[in-house]
């Protein structure tokens, strides 16, 4: 533990600077500069641009600094703090926390929003086109992300709970199946509910605005409805999953059948019961891929899970209630051959 504390503290310090302090500082500085510019600008500034790049919506001059602090600061805080949450909670599996990805994401989000909102608010259609600002913002954001990735380090987990299950004794000819499930915790469900509510409210608000303005629903409304449908589909497939272990191997699928992952019994080299920390190891919840040796994971909540190592060395992790029984059955089936 002591040998690990110093590098861990250093990694944490770097992470705080790269993912939180610097992006937040940038957002605040740009917002302050914009506020200083307000007397030089006209009382209203363009806030919305049509497809051809000309302004078609106007708002008061203070719109941009406020938007910048809310959207930019909010995104950086959200992403950055989620990473810290993953680090402080990182539990037993001994896998490195995916700090670098989170730091890259936070830095990129901060730079992108600062450039977009800052650029549009300070040069309202005078010198730079919307497309140029967007392109510059994307390039700078990718650069900032790469830089943040280079500047941070991942840390190892605290300890290990990776148990080799005792094989379930099986009589020759006996047929066995284990079925189980895994579902998101209360926080995950609450976040999902908020996401659905936001998507639906946005679609309804756009529809109401467009219909009251033009008498019919326009492209914005339809795209918001499409977004809402996509959000609902994603949540339907990621809030819970069903798991089955039988002589053929392991199957994990969403309640509607897709996506699904099947690992044939003959490809399973090793089975373990592990403690899974989705945020720390996979950078989030759901159907995830972890860099390094992590491999794919269907990780919906913190806690007990099943980890498979395939014959080709690839890994697969799924959180599962009663993972011990599933692992013991897999081991039993394997030893029976």
């Amino acid at each position, binding site marked *: 533990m002591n040998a690990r504390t110093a590098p861990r503290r250093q990694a944490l310090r770097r992470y705080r600077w790269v993912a939180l302090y610097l992006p937040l500082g940038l957002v605040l500085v740009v917002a302050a500069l914009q506020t200083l510019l307000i007397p030089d600008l006209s009382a209203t500034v363009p806030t919305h641009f049509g497809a051809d790049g000309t302004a078609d919506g106007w708002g008061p001059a203070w719109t941009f600094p406020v938007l910048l602090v809310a959207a930019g600061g909010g995104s950086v805080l959200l992403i950055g703090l989620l990473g810290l949450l993953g680090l402080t909670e990182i539990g037993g599996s001994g896998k490195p926390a995916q700090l670098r990805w989170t730091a890259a994401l936070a830095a990129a989000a901060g730079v992108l929003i600062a450039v977009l909102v800052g650029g549009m608010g300070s040069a309202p259609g005078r010198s730079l086109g919307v497309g140029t600002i967007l392109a510059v913002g994307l390039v700078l954001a990718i650069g900032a992300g790469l830089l943040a990735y280079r500047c941070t380090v991942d840390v190892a987990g605290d300890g290990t709970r990776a148990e080799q299950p005792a094989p379930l004794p099986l*009589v020759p000819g*006996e047929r066995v199946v284990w079925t189980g499930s895994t579902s998101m915790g209360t926080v995950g469900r609450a976040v999902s509910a908020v996401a659905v509510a936001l998507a639906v409210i946005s679609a309804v608000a756009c529809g109401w605005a467009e219909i009251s303005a033009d008498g019919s629903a326009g492209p914005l409304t339809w795209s918001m409805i499409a977004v809402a449908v996509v959000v609902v589909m994603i949540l339907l497939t990621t809030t819970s999953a069903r798991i089955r272990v039988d002589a053929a191997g392991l199957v994990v699928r969403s309640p509607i059948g897709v996506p699904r992952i099947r690992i044939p019994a003959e490809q399973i080299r090793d089975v373990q019961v592990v403690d899974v920390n989705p945020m720390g190891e996979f950078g989030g919840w759901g159907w995830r891929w972890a860099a390094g040796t992590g491999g794919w994971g269907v990780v919906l909540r913190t806690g007990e899970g099943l980890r498979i190592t395939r014959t080709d060395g690839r890994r697969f992790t799924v959180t599962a209630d009663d993972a011990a029984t599933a692992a013991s059955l897999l081991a039993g089936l394997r030893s029976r051959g």
Partner: protein
Amino acid sequence: MLVRIDPAKDEPVFSQLAASVRRDIISGSMAAGDRLPAAKELATALSINVHTVLHAYQVLRDEGLVELRRGRGATVTGAAEGLTTLREDVTHLVEAASRVGVGREALAGLVRDIPA
């Protein structure tokens, strides 16, 4: 839920299947409202006829342990909760008996001698 059957045994497969699911329900690894796997899924996984699985589910329904609804499949009823609680009570009873030196057989005798 762990289901095991052995076609080589004399006991019919549907009865083995029902017994296996019943054990899972009574042990508390399936709670009220939990859904049993679809009959088709279980039949495929165990390489048995889907009607055999449905037969087992009907046995459990007749015992009041599961509820069969069209479109919703089989779900564990609240009746199982009583059995689970009873099982826990019996576990406590066995522990209490062993603390005063009464073995399981003697305890079973005590249970038989309690006037109805």
